[in-house]
Protein backbone atom coordinates (compact mmCIF):
# COMPACT_ATOMS: atom_id res chain seq x y z
CA UNK A 1 0.00 0.00 0.00
CA UNK A 2 2.90 2.30 0.58
CA UNK A 3 4.75 1.89 -2.68
CA UNK A 4 3.17 5.08 -4.07
CA UNK A 5 4.45 7.12 -1.13
CA UNK A 6 7.84 5.51 -1.49
CA UNK A 7 8.00 6.49 -5.12
CA UNK A 8 6.90 10.09 -4.46
CA UNK A 9 9.36 10.53 -1.61
CA UNK A 10 12.21 9.04 -3.59
CA UNK A 11 11.51 11.40 -6.49
CA UNK A 12 11.41 14.44 -4.23
CA UNK A 13 14.66 13.45 -2.53
CA UNK A 14 16.46 12.76 -5.79
CA UNK A 15 15.30 16.13 -7.07
CA UNK A 16 16.59 17.87 -3.97
CA UNK A 17 19.95 16.13 -4.21
CA UNK A 18 20.22 17.00 -7.91
CA UNK A 19 19.41 20.69 -7.25
CA UNK A 20 21.94 20.88 -4.46
CA UNK A 21 24.73 19.24 -6.43
CA UNK A 22 23.95 21.66 -9.26
CA UNK A 23 24.29 24.57 -6.83
CA UNK A 24 27.53 23.08 -5.59
CA UNK A 25 28.88 22.80 -9.11
CA UNK A 26 27.96 26.34 -10.09
CA UNK A 27 29.84 27.80 -7.21
CA UNK A 28 33.19 26.43 -8.41
CA UNK A 29 35.98 28.95 -8.43
CA UNK A 30 33.90 31.82 -7.11
CA UNK A 31 36.36 32.64 -4.30
CA UNK A 32 37.00 36.36 -4.45
CA UNK A 33 40.67 36.33 -3.47
CA UNK A 34 43.05 37.51 -6.14
CA UNK A 35 45.08 34.59 -7.47
CA UNK A 36 48.37 35.78 -5.99
CA UNK A 37 47.00 37.17 -2.74
CA UNK A 38 48.10 35.54 0.48
CA UNK A 39 45.16 35.14 2.83
CA UNK A 40 45.82 35.85 6.52
CA UNK A 41 42.97 34.73 8.78
CA UNK A 42 42.79 35.90 12.39
CA UNK A 43 40.56 34.25 14.99
CA UNK A 44 39.62 36.66 17.80
CA UNK A 45 39.21 40.41 17.31
CA UNK A 46 42.45 41.33 19.18
CA UNK A 47 44.31 38.91 16.89
CA UNK A 48 42.71 40.46 13.81
CA UNK A 49 43.82 43.89 15.01
CA UNK A 50 47.35 42.56 15.59
CA UNK A 51 47.45 41.08 12.08
CA UNK A 52 46.23 44.35 10.53
CA UNK A 53 48.83 46.33 12.48
CA UNK A 54 51.78 44.10 11.61
CA UNK A 55 50.76 43.67 7.96
CA UNK A 56 49.87 47.35 7.38
CA UNK A 57 51.07 48.62 4.01
CA UNK A 58 52.15 45.23 2.64
CA UNK A 59 50.69 44.57 -0.83
CA UNK A 60 49.31 41.20 -1.90
CA UNK A 61 47.84 40.30 1.49
CA UNK A 62 44.20 39.89 2.39
CA UNK A 63 43.39 39.91 6.10
CA UNK A 64 40.17 38.33 7.30
CA UNK A 65 38.76 38.10 10.81
CA UNK A 66 36.79 34.99 11.76
CA UNK A 67 34.91 36.27 14.78
CA UNK A 68 32.64 39.31 14.53
CA UNK A 69 33.11 42.20 16.99
CA UNK A 70 31.59 41.64 20.40
CA UNK A 71 31.53 37.83 20.19
CA UNK A 72 32.88 35.74 23.04
CA UNK A 73 35.78 33.69 21.61
CA UNK A 74 35.43 31.01 24.30
CA UNK A 75 31.97 30.19 22.95
CA UNK A 76 32.28 31.10 19.29
CA UNK A 77 30.90 28.31 17.15
CA UNK A 78 32.35 27.32 13.84
CA UNK A 79 30.12 28.03 10.87
CA UNK A 80 30.37 26.89 7.27
CA UNK A 81 31.48 30.40 6.29
CA UNK A 82 34.25 30.27 8.89
CA UNK A 83 35.37 26.90 7.53
CA UNK A 84 35.44 28.35 4.01
CA UNK A 85 37.63 31.26 5.17
CA UNK A 86 39.96 28.88 7.02
CA UNK A 87 40.18 26.52 4.03
CA UNK A 88 41.60 29.40 1.97
CA UNK A 89 44.01 30.59 4.66
CA UNK A 90 47.77 30.66 4.07
CA UNK A 91 48.45 32.01 7.54
CA UNK A 92 46.20 31.70 10.60
CA UNK A 93 46.79 34.15 13.45
CA UNK A 94 45.35 32.72 16.65
CA UNK A 95 45.64 33.62 20.31
CA UNK A 96 46.32 30.13 21.61
CA UNK A 97 46.21 28.86 25.21
CA UNK A 98 42.73 27.59 24.44
CA UNK A 99 41.13 31.02 24.09
CA UNK A 100 39.45 29.70 20.97
CA UNK A 101 37.79 26.88 22.91
CA UNK A 102 35.80 25.42 20.06
CA UNK A 103 38.65 25.68 17.58
CA UNK A 104 41.44 24.24 19.70
CA UNK A 105 41.46 20.98 17.76
CA UNK A 106 41.22 22.54 14.32
CA UNK A 107 44.37 24.65 14.50
CA UNK A 108 46.92 21.80 14.70
CA UNK A 109 45.03 20.02 11.94
CA UNK A 110 45.31 23.09 9.71
CA UNK A 111 49.02 23.26 10.50
CA UNK A 112 49.39 19.62 9.50
CA UNK A 113 47.81 20.27 6.10
CA UNK A 114 50.36 22.95 5.22
CA UNK A 115 48.90 26.19 6.58
CA UNK A 116 51.12 28.35 8.79
CA UNK A 117 49.52 28.72 12.22
CA UNK A 118 50.86 31.52 14.42
CA UNK A 119 49.76 31.56 18.05
CA UNK A 120 50.28 34.94 19.71
CA UNK A 121 50.79 33.31 23.10
CA UNK A 122 53.66 31.17 21.79
CA UNK A 123 55.64 34.34 20.98
CA UNK A 124 55.59 35.13 24.70
CA UNK A 125 58.09 33.31 26.96
CA UNK A 126 56.31 30.64 29.00
CA UNK A 127 57.55 32.03 32.29
CA UNK A 128 55.46 35.14 31.66
CA UNK A 129 52.24 33.20 31.22
CA UNK A 130 49.99 33.56 34.24
CA UNK A 131 48.51 30.45 35.76
CA UNK A 132 45.40 30.85 37.86
CA UNK A 133 45.20 28.82 41.06
CA UNK A 134 43.31 25.55 40.80
CA UNK A 135 43.13 25.65 37.02
CA UNK A 136 44.98 22.36 36.48
CA UNK A 137 48.02 24.23 35.24
CA UNK A 138 46.01 25.91 32.52
CA UNK A 139 47.60 29.23 31.56
CA UNK A 140 45.51 32.38 31.31
CA UNK A 141 44.94 33.10 27.60
CA UNK A 142 44.10 36.82 27.88
CA UNK A 143 47.65 37.92 27.00
CA UNK A 144 46.67 41.02 24.98
CA UNK A 145 45.73 42.78 28.23
CA UNK A 146 49.42 43.42 29.00
CA UNK A 147 50.91 45.84 26.43
CA UNK A 148 54.44 44.52 26.99
CA UNK A 149 53.34 40.98 26.14
CA UNK A 150 51.24 42.09 23.18
CA UNK A 151 54.28 43.92 21.78
CA UNK A 152 56.16 40.59 21.98
CA UNK A 153 53.30 38.94 20.12
CA UNK A 154 53.60 41.60 17.39
CA UNK A 155 57.33 40.91 17.08
CA UNK A 156 56.65 37.19 16.86
CA UNK A 157 54.03 37.70 14.17
CA UNK A 158 56.42 39.98 12.25
CA UNK A 159 59.12 37.31 12.13
CA UNK A 160 56.55 34.65 11.23
CA UNK A 161 55.28 36.81 8.34
CA UNK A 162 58.87 37.55 7.30
CA UNK A 163 59.48 33.81 6.90
CA UNK A 164 56.32 33.55 4.79
CA UNK A 165 57.00 36.63 2.71
CA UNK A 166 60.75 37.50 2.89
CA UNK A 167 60.37 40.30 0.33
CA UNK A 168 58.58 42.49 2.89
CA UNK A 169 60.48 41.43 6.00
CA UNK A 170 61.64 45.00 6.69
CA UNK A 171 58.11 46.31 6.54
CA UNK A 172 56.80 43.74 9.04
CA UNK A 173 59.69 44.45 11.40
CA UNK A 174 59.16 48.21 11.15
CA UNK A 175 55.42 47.84 11.82
CA UNK A 176 56.09 45.67 14.86
CA UNK A 177 58.70 48.08 16.20
CA UNK A 178 56.34 51.04 15.80
CA UNK A 179 53.60 49.05 17.52
CA UNK A 180 56.02 48.24 20.35
CA UNK A 181 56.61 51.96 20.95
CA UNK A 182 52.87 52.60 20.98
CA UNK A 183 52.39 49.75 23.45
CA UNK A 184 54.99 51.36 25.71
CA UNK A 185 53.18 54.72 25.63
CA UNK A 186 49.78 53.11 26.30
CA UNK A 187 51.24 51.20 29.24
CA UNK A 188 52.76 54.33 30.78
CA UNK A 189 49.54 56.29 30.59
CA UNK A 190 47.36 53.48 31.92
CA UNK A 191 49.78 52.83 34.79
CA UNK A 192 49.85 56.51 35.72
CA UNK A 193 46.04 56.70 35.68
CA UNK A 194 45.59 53.53 37.77
CA UNK A 195 48.03 54.98 40.32
CA UNK A 196 45.57 57.82 40.95
CA UNK A 197 42.99 55.37 42.37
CA UNK A 198 43.10 55.39 46.22
CA UNK A 199 45.19 52.30 47.17
CA UNK A 200 42.49 50.56 49.24
CA UNK A 201 40.07 50.66 46.34
CA UNK A 202 42.44 49.22 43.76
CA UNK A 203 40.34 46.09 43.27
CA UNK A 204 39.01 45.26 39.84
CA UNK A 205 36.03 42.89 39.98
CA UNK A 206 34.87 41.64 36.58
CA UNK A 207 32.52 39.04 35.19
CA UNK A 208 35.22 36.48 34.35
CA UNK A 209 38.97 36.22 34.94
CA UNK A 210 40.06 38.15 31.83
CA UNK A 211 42.09 40.87 33.53
CA UNK A 212 44.86 38.92 35.28
CA UNK A 213 47.55 40.27 32.94
CA UNK A 214 46.06 43.76 33.11
CA UNK A 215 46.18 43.72 36.89
CA UNK A 216 49.74 42.41 37.05
CA UNK A 217 50.94 44.99 34.53
CA UNK A 218 49.30 48.00 36.13
CA UNK A 219 49.26 47.24 39.84
CA UNK A 220 45.60 46.57 40.53
CA UNK A 221 44.20 43.47 42.21
CA UNK A 222 41.79 41.48 40.07
CA UNK A 223 38.92 39.12 40.90
CA UNK A 224 36.68 37.37 38.41
CA UNK A 225 33.22 36.18 39.31
CA UNK A 226 33.61 33.34 36.81
CA UNK A 227 36.79 31.41 36.10
CA UNK A 228 39.20 31.79 33.20
CA UNK A 229 36.79 30.51 30.62
CA UNK A 230 33.31 31.95 30.42
CA UNK A 231 32.10 28.34 30.36
CA UNK A 232 32.80 27.66 34.00
CA UNK A 233 30.03 28.16 36.51
CA UNK A 234 29.91 30.56 39.41
CA UNK A 235 30.10 28.90 42.80
CA UNK A 236 27.94 30.40 45.55
CA UNK A 237 30.75 30.23 48.10
CA UNK A 238 33.06 32.14 45.76
CA UNK A 239 30.39 34.76 45.23
CA UNK A 240 29.93 35.25 48.99
CA UNK A 241 33.68 35.52 49.64
CA UNK A 242 33.98 38.07 46.87
CA UNK A 243 31.06 40.05 48.28
CA UNK A 244 32.68 40.10 51.75
CA UNK A 245 35.89 41.48 50.33
CA UNK A 246 34.23 44.13 48.17
CA UNK A 247 32.10 45.39 51.06
CA UNK A 248 34.96 45.31 53.58
CA UNK A 249 37.24 47.35 51.34
CA UNK A 250 34.60 49.85 50.30
CA UNK A 251 35.14 49.24 46.60
CA UNK A 252 32.58 51.46 44.87
CA UNK A 253 32.11 49.61 41.58
CA UNK A 254 32.27 46.26 39.81
CA UNK A 255 32.33 45.78 36.06
CA UNK A 256 30.45 43.89 33.39
CA UNK A 257 31.98 42.78 30.09
CA UNK A 258 30.71 43.26 26.55
CA UNK A 259 30.99 39.60 25.58
CA UNK A 260 29.76 37.99 28.82
CA UNK A 261 26.23 37.94 30.29
CA UNK A 262 26.07 40.24 33.33
CA UNK A 263 23.96 37.96 35.55
CA UNK A 264 26.70 37.14 38.06
CA UNK A 265 27.86 40.74 38.38
CA UNK A 266 24.27 41.87 38.90
CA UNK A 267 23.96 39.31 41.71
CA UNK A 268 27.04 40.82 43.36
CA UNK A 269 25.63 44.35 43.17
CA UNK A 270 22.31 43.25 44.65
CA UNK A 271 24.07 41.34 47.41
CA UNK A 272 26.09 44.40 48.41
CA UNK A 273 23.00 46.62 48.42
CA UNK A 274 21.20 44.11 50.63
CA UNK A 275 24.00 44.64 53.15
CA UNK A 276 23.62 48.38 52.89
CA UNK A 277 26.90 48.93 51.06
CA UNK A 278 27.12 51.25 48.08
CA UNK A 279 28.16 49.25 45.07
CA UNK A 280 27.47 50.08 41.47
CA UNK A 281 28.07 48.62 38.08
CA UNK A 282 31.02 50.73 37.06
CA UNK A 283 30.60 50.27 33.35
CA UNK A 284 31.21 47.82 30.58
CA UNK A 285 34.72 46.56 29.84
CA UNK A 286 35.93 45.06 26.58
CA UNK A 287 37.47 41.81 27.74
CA UNK A 288 37.58 39.12 25.08
CA UNK A 289 36.48 41.09 22.04
CA UNK A 290 37.19 44.55 20.72
CA UNK A 291 34.38 46.93 19.89
CA UNK A 292 32.82 47.38 16.47
CA UNK A 293 35.39 48.88 14.03
CA UNK A 294 35.10 52.66 13.91
CA UNK A 295 34.07 53.02 17.57
CA UNK A 296 36.60 54.17 20.20
CA UNK A 297 37.28 50.59 21.33
CA UNK A 298 37.40 49.26 17.76
CA UNK A 299 41.16 48.63 17.85
CA UNK A 300 43.53 47.35 20.51
CA UNK A 301 44.91 50.73 21.61
CA UNK A 302 41.45 52.30 21.83
CA UNK A 303 40.17 49.28 23.75
CA UNK A 304 42.99 49.52 26.33
CA UNK A 305 42.44 53.24 26.87
CA UNK A 306 38.66 52.88 27.01
CA UNK A 307 38.86 50.05 29.58
CA UNK A 308 41.32 52.04 31.70
CA UNK A 309 39.10 55.13 31.51
CA UNK A 310 36.07 53.13 32.66
CA UNK A 311 37.96 51.49 35.54
CA UNK A 312 39.77 54.58 36.79
CA UNK A 313 36.64 56.75 36.56
CA UNK A 314 34.42 54.31 38.45
CA UNK A 315 36.96 53.54 41.20
CA UNK A 316 37.55 57.21 41.96
CA UNK A 317 40.82 57.98 40.18
CA UNK A 318 41.77 60.65 37.67
CA UNK A 319 41.16 59.48 34.08
CA UNK A 320 42.08 62.75 32.37
CA UNK A 321 45.39 61.39 31.02
CA UNK A 322 43.69 58.68 29.01
CA UNK A 323 42.25 60.60 26.11
CA UNK A 324 43.43 59.18 22.86
CA UNK A 325 46.51 60.72 21.21
CA UNK A 326 46.44 61.50 17.52
CA UNK A 327 48.25 58.25 16.72
CA UNK A 328 45.29 56.48 15.20
CA UNK A 329 45.77 55.61 11.56
Amino acid at each position, binding site marked *: MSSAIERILATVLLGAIACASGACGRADGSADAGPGDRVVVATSTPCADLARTVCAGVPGLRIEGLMPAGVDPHLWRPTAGGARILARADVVVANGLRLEGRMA*DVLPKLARSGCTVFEASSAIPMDRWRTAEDAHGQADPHVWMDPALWALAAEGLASCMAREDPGHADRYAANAAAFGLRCGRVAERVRAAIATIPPGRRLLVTAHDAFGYFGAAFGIEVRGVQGLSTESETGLANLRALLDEVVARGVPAVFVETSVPDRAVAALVEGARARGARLETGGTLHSDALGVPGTPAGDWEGMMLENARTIVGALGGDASGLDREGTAP
Partner: protein
Amino acid sequence: MSRAHAAIDALRAWTPEVDGWIIAIGALAAVACAVPGTLLVARRQSMAADGIAHAVLPGIAGAFLLSGTRDLAWMAGGAAVAAVAMSAGSAFLERRLRVERDAALGIAYTALFALGLALVVRAADGVDIDPSCVLFGAIEFAPLDRVTAGGRAVPRAALVIAATAGANVAVAALAWRPILASSFDRGFARAAGARPAACDAIVGAMATATCVACFESLGSVIVVAMLVVPACAARLACARLVPMAALAAAFGCGATVLGHVAACVAAPVAGLDASGVRELSTAGCVAAALGACFAGAAGARAVMSRNRPVDGAHAASLPCAP
Protein backbone atom coordinates in the same frame (compact mmCIF):
# COMPACT_ATOMS: atom_id res chain seq x y z
CA MET B 1 13.97 40.67 -4.86
CA SER B 2 17.13 41.45 -2.95
CA ARG B 3 16.41 38.60 -0.54
CA ALA B 4 16.39 36.06 -3.35
CA HIS B 5 19.67 37.56 -4.52
CA ALA B 6 21.06 37.30 -1.02
CA ALA B 7 20.10 33.63 -0.93
CA ILE B 8 21.72 32.98 -4.32
CA ASP B 9 24.85 34.84 -3.26
CA ALA B 10 25.04 32.74 -0.10
CA LEU B 11 24.92 29.56 -2.19
CA ARG B 12 27.43 30.96 -4.69
CA ALA B 13 29.94 31.20 -1.87
CA TRP B 14 29.86 27.41 -1.58
CA THR B 15 33.12 25.69 -2.34
CA PRO B 16 33.48 21.98 -3.13
CA GLU B 17 36.29 21.49 -0.62
CA VAL B 18 34.17 22.77 2.28
CA ASP B 19 30.46 22.61 1.45
CA GLY B 20 30.81 19.65 -0.89
CA TRP B 21 32.53 17.66 1.84
CA ILE B 22 30.07 18.81 4.52
CA ILE B 23 27.26 17.32 2.44
CA ALA B 24 29.25 14.21 1.58
CA ILE B 25 30.13 13.61 5.23
CA GLY B 26 26.52 14.20 6.28
CA ALA B 27 25.31 11.76 3.64
CA LEU B 28 27.81 9.12 4.79
CA ALA B 29 26.64 9.66 8.35
CA ALA B 30 23.05 9.21 7.16
CA VAL B 31 23.98 5.83 5.66
CA ALA B 32 25.97 4.80 8.73
CA CYS B 33 23.09 5.78 11.04
CA ALA B 34 20.34 4.24 8.91
CA VAL B 35 21.28 0.64 9.77
CA PRO B 36 21.36 0.82 13.58
CA GLY B 37 18.63 3.50 13.53
CA THR B 38 16.19 1.30 11.64
CA LEU B 39 16.94 -1.66 13.90
CA LEU B 40 16.55 0.43 17.07
CA VAL B 41 13.21 1.81 15.88
CA ALA B 42 11.95 -1.62 14.81
CA ARG B 43 13.01 -3.07 18.19
CA ARG B 44 11.30 -0.18 20.02
CA GLN B 45 14.63 0.92 21.52
CA SER B 46 14.97 4.31 19.90
CA MET B 47 15.61 5.97 23.24
CA ALA B 48 18.91 4.07 23.35
CA ALA B 49 20.33 6.59 20.87
CA ASP B 50 19.59 9.48 23.20
CA GLY B 51 20.86 7.37 26.08
CA ILE B 52 24.20 6.71 24.41
CA ALA B 53 24.59 10.38 23.49
CA HIS B 54 24.28 11.35 27.16
CA ALA B 55 26.02 8.37 28.68
CA VAL B 56 29.33 8.92 26.90
CA LEU B 57 29.94 12.14 28.89
CA PRO B 58 31.42 10.50 32.02
CA GLY B 59 33.61 8.33 29.81
CA ILE B 60 34.99 11.35 28.02
CA ALA B 61 35.46 13.42 31.17
CA GLY B 62 36.97 10.45 33.01
CA ALA B 63 39.39 9.79 30.17
CA PHE B 64 40.42 13.45 30.28
CA LEU B 65 41.00 13.35 34.04
CA LEU B 66 42.99 10.11 33.74
CA SER B 67 45.10 10.96 30.73
CA GLY B 68 45.28 14.75 30.96
CA THR B 69 44.95 14.94 27.18
CA ARG B 70 42.08 15.28 24.81
CA ASP B 71 43.65 12.74 22.53
CA LEU B 72 41.14 10.99 20.28
CA ALA B 73 42.03 7.45 21.30
CA TRP B 74 41.46 8.23 25.01
CA MET B 75 38.21 10.03 24.32
CA ALA B 76 36.81 7.28 22.09
CA GLY B 77 37.91 4.61 24.55
CA GLY B 78 36.27 6.40 27.46
CA ALA B 79 33.09 6.94 25.47
CA ALA B 80 32.93 3.27 24.52
CA VAL B 81 33.43 2.15 28.13
CA ALA B 82 30.66 4.47 29.31
CA ALA B 83 28.28 3.30 26.59
CA VAL B 84 28.90 -0.33 27.50
CA ALA B 85 28.33 0.56 31.16
CA MET B 86 25.00 2.13 30.22
CA SER B 87 23.90 -0.91 28.21
CA ALA B 88 24.92 -3.28 30.98
CA GLY B 89 23.29 -1.12 33.65
CA SER B 90 19.99 -0.82 31.87
CA ALA B 91 19.97 -4.54 31.00
CA PHE B 92 20.55 -5.33 34.68
CA LEU B 93 17.71 -3.06 35.79
CA GLU B 94 15.41 -4.56 33.19
CA ARG B 95 16.15 -8.25 33.81
CA ARG B 96 16.87 -8.44 37.53
CA LEU B 97 14.72 -5.65 38.93
CA ARG B 98 11.92 -5.95 36.36
CA VAL B 99 12.04 -2.27 35.48
CA GLU B 100 10.44 -1.45 32.15
CA ARG B 101 12.90 -1.13 29.29
CA ASP B 102 12.56 2.61 28.61
CA ALA B 103 12.58 3.39 32.32
CA ALA B 104 15.70 1.27 32.82
CA LEU B 105 17.41 3.13 30.01
CA GLY B 106 16.29 6.46 31.46
CA ILE B 107 17.66 5.59 34.90
CA ALA B 108 20.98 4.33 33.54
CA TYR B 109 21.74 7.21 31.25
CA THR B 110 20.62 10.04 33.52
CA ALA B 111 22.76 8.54 36.30
CA LEU B 112 25.78 8.38 34.01
CA PHE B 113 25.15 11.86 32.66
CA ALA B 114 24.97 13.23 36.21
CA LEU B 115 28.26 11.50 37.03
CA GLY B 116 29.70 13.03 33.88
CA LEU B 117 28.60 16.54 34.88
CA ALA B 118 30.23 16.09 38.28
CA LEU B 119 33.46 15.01 36.59
CA VAL B 120 33.31 17.96 34.21
CA VAL B 121 32.95 20.43 37.08
CA ARG B 122 35.92 18.72 38.71
CA ALA B 123 37.98 19.17 35.55
CA ALA B 124 36.54 22.23 33.93
CA ASP B 125 37.66 25.37 35.72
CA GLY B 126 40.15 26.90 33.36
CA VAL B 127 39.96 24.02 30.91
CA ASP B 128 37.52 23.94 28.07
CA ILE B 129 36.02 20.51 28.33
CA ASP B 130 32.48 21.44 27.53
CA PRO B 131 31.14 18.34 25.82
CA SER B 132 29.17 20.27 23.25
CA CYS B 133 32.20 22.10 21.94
CA VAL B 134 35.59 20.49 21.77
CA LEU B 135 34.99 16.86 22.53
CA PHE B 136 32.11 16.56 20.16
CA GLY B 137 33.19 18.07 16.88
CA ALA B 138 31.31 20.27 14.48
CA ILE B 139 30.38 19.13 11.00
CA GLU B 140 31.35 22.55 9.61
CA PHE B 141 34.99 22.04 10.52
CA ALA B 142 35.17 18.34 9.62
CA PRO B 143 36.37 19.13 6.04
CA LEU B 144 39.41 20.98 7.43
CA ASP B 145 40.85 17.88 9.08
CA ARG B 146 42.35 16.19 6.04
CA VAL B 147 44.46 13.10 5.59
CA THR B 148 45.99 11.81 2.39
CA ALA B 149 44.29 8.71 1.06
CA GLY B 150 45.02 7.31 -2.38
CA GLY B 151 46.97 10.42 -3.34
CA ARG B 152 44.10 12.82 -2.50
CA ALA B 153 43.46 14.93 0.56
CA VAL B 154 40.28 13.53 2.08
CA PRO B 155 38.63 14.61 5.34
CA ARG B 156 39.42 12.09 8.05
CA ALA B 157 35.78 12.14 9.13
CA ALA B 158 34.70 10.93 5.68
CA LEU B 159 36.99 7.90 5.93
CA VAL B 160 36.02 7.08 9.53
CA ILE B 161 32.30 7.38 8.87
CA ALA B 162 32.47 5.51 5.56
CA ALA B 163 34.26 2.66 7.38
CA THR B 164 31.57 2.73 10.09
CA ALA B 165 28.82 2.59 7.47
CA GLY B 166 30.51 -0.36 5.75
CA ALA B 167 30.95 -2.19 9.05
CA ASN B 168 27.31 -1.60 9.99
CA VAL B 169 26.03 -2.96 6.69
CA ALA B 170 28.37 -5.95 6.90
CA VAL B 171 27.39 -6.83 10.49
CA ALA B 172 23.69 -6.45 9.73
CA ALA B 173 24.05 -8.67 6.65
CA LEU B 174 25.97 -11.37 8.53
CA ALA B 175 23.60 -11.53 11.50
CA TRP B 176 20.48 -10.66 9.54
CA ARG B 177 18.23 -13.64 10.29
CA PRO B 178 18.63 -13.72 14.09
CA ILE B 179 18.42 -9.91 14.31
CA LEU B 180 15.28 -9.90 12.19
CA ALA B 181 13.63 -12.67 14.19
CA SER B 182 14.49 -11.14 17.56
CA SER B 183 13.24 -7.73 16.45
CA PHE B 184 9.67 -8.91 16.19
CA ASP B 185 9.07 -12.02 18.23
CA ARG B 186 11.62 -12.83 20.89
CA GLY B 187 9.91 -16.08 21.89
CA PHE B 188 9.93 -17.34 18.33
CA ALA B 189 13.53 -16.21 17.89
CA ARG B 190 14.59 -18.11 21.01
CA ALA B 191 12.74 -21.22 19.86
CA ALA B 192 14.41 -20.98 16.45
CA GLY B 193 17.86 -20.95 18.03
CA ALA B 194 18.62 -17.22 17.71
CA ARG B 195 19.72 -15.56 20.95
CA PRO B 196 17.77 -12.32 21.48
CA ALA B 197 20.16 -11.07 24.17
CA ALA B 198 23.12 -11.49 21.82
CA CYS B 199 21.18 -9.66 19.11
CA ASP B 200 20.47 -6.83 21.56
CA ALA B 201 24.20 -6.63 22.24
CA ILE B 202 25.04 -6.56 18.51
CA VAL B 203 22.56 -3.78 17.76
CA GLY B 204 23.66 -1.85 20.86
CA ALA B 205 27.32 -2.19 19.91
CA MET B 206 26.55 -1.03 16.38
CA ALA B 207 24.69 2.03 17.67
CA THR B 208 27.46 2.82 20.15
CA ALA B 209 30.23 2.51 17.57
CA THR B 210 28.28 4.73 15.19
CA CYS B 211 27.68 7.35 17.89
CA VAL B 212 31.31 7.43 18.98
CA ALA B 213 32.60 7.58 15.40
CA CYS B 214 30.24 10.40 14.48
CA PHE B 215 30.32 12.45 17.71
CA GLU B 216 33.99 13.13 17.46
CA SER B 217 33.75 14.74 14.05
CA LEU B 218 30.11 15.78 13.66
CA GLY B 219 28.74 16.61 17.09
CA SER B 220 25.99 15.00 19.11
CA VAL B 221 22.87 16.83 17.89
CA ILE B 222 23.14 15.67 14.32
CA VAL B 223 23.91 12.05 15.25
CA VAL B 224 21.03 11.55 17.65
CA ALA B 225 18.67 13.08 15.08
CA MET B 226 20.12 10.98 12.25
CA LEU B 227 19.74 7.71 14.15
CA VAL B 228 16.11 8.03 15.10
CA VAL B 229 14.20 10.53 12.96
CA PRO B 230 14.83 9.19 9.41
CA ALA B 231 14.10 5.65 10.56
CA CYS B 232 10.80 6.77 12.13
CA ALA B 233 9.85 8.67 8.98
CA ALA B 234 10.74 5.67 6.81
CA ARG B 235 8.66 3.40 9.02
CA LEU B 236 5.61 5.43 8.08
CA ALA B 237 6.20 4.67 4.41
CA CYS B 238 7.63 1.14 4.39
CA ALA B 239 6.56 -2.12 5.90
CA ARG B 240 9.79 -4.08 5.35
CA LEU B 241 13.12 -3.52 7.07
CA VAL B 242 15.50 -3.32 4.10
CA PRO B 243 13.52 -0.71 2.13
CA MET B 244 12.97 1.08 5.44
CA ALA B 245 16.73 1.33 6.02
CA ALA B 246 17.30 2.46 2.43
CA LEU B 247 14.59 5.10 2.69
CA ALA B 248 15.96 6.21 6.07
CA ALA B 249 19.38 6.70 4.47
CA ALA B 250 17.78 8.66 1.64
CA PHE B 251 15.87 10.85 4.12
CA GLY B 252 19.12 11.50 5.96
CA CYS B 253 20.94 12.46 2.75
CA GLY B 254 18.12 14.75 1.63
CA ALA B 255 17.94 16.38 5.05
CA THR B 256 21.69 16.99 5.00
CA VAL B 257 21.39 18.87 1.72
CA LEU B 258 18.29 20.79 2.77
CA GLY B 259 19.73 21.57 6.19
CA HIS B 260 23.04 22.86 4.89
CA VAL B 261 21.29 25.00 2.27
CA ALA B 262 19.01 26.37 4.97
CA ALA B 263 21.95 27.06 7.29
CA CYS B 264 23.69 29.12 4.61
CA VAL B 265 20.60 30.86 3.23
CA ALA B 266 18.48 31.58 6.31
CA ALA B 267 20.57 34.39 7.81
CA PRO B 268 20.90 36.55 4.67
CA VAL B 269 17.26 35.97 3.71
CA ALA B 270 16.01 36.92 7.16
CA GLY B 271 18.30 39.97 7.17
CA LEU B 272 20.29 38.73 10.18
CA ASP B 273 23.62 39.17 8.42
CA ALA B 274 23.58 42.89 9.20
CA SER B 275 24.10 41.99 12.86
CA GLY B 276 27.12 39.81 12.07
CA VAL B 277 25.33 36.46 11.84
CA ARG B 278 26.49 34.92 8.57
CA GLU B 279 25.44 31.29 8.84
CA LEU B 280 23.36 29.21 11.16
CA SER B 281 24.61 25.95 12.63
CA THR B 282 24.51 23.24 9.97
CA ALA B 283 23.90 20.51 12.55
CA GLY B 284 20.86 22.31 13.96
CA CYS B 285 19.44 22.97 10.50
CA VAL B 286 19.94 19.36 9.43
CA ALA B 287 18.10 18.21 12.55
CA ALA B 288 15.28 20.64 11.71
CA ALA B 289 15.19 19.35 8.12
CA LEU B 290 14.92 15.80 9.47
CA GLY B 291 11.95 16.93 11.52
CA ALA B 292 10.44 18.40 8.37
CA CYS B 293 11.00 15.09 6.54
CA PHE B 294 9.19 13.28 9.32
CA ALA B 295 6.32 15.78 9.23
CA GLY B 296 6.09 15.36 5.46
CA ALA B 297 6.04 11.56 5.73
CA ALA B 298 3.43 11.71 8.49
CA GLY B 299 1.31 14.10 6.43
CA ALA B 300 1.54 11.87 3.34
CA ARG B 301 0.67 8.87 5.47
CA ALA B 302 -2.36 10.64 6.93
CA VAL B 303 -3.62 11.58 3.47
CA MET B 304 -3.16 8.03 2.20
CA SER B 305 -4.80 6.35 5.18
CA ARG B 306 -7.81 8.67 5.02
CA ASN B 307 -8.57 7.08 1.66
CA ARG B 308 -8.15 3.57 3.05
CA PRO B 309 -8.99 3.80 6.76
CA VAL B 310 -9.12 0.06 7.50
CA ASP B 311 -5.76 -0.70 5.92
CA GLY B 312 -4.24 2.37 7.56
CA ALA B 313 -5.49 1.46 11.01
CA HIS B 314 -4.18 -2.05 10.56
CA ALA B 315 -0.74 -0.83 9.52
CA ALA B 316 -0.57 1.60 12.42
CA SER B 317 -1.20 -1.13 14.97
CA LEU B 318 1.69 -3.25 13.70
CA PRO B 319 5.05 -1.48 13.65
CA CYS B 320 6.23 -3.41 10.64
CA ALA B 321 6.38 -6.94 9.35
CA PRO B 322 9.45 -8.79 8.18
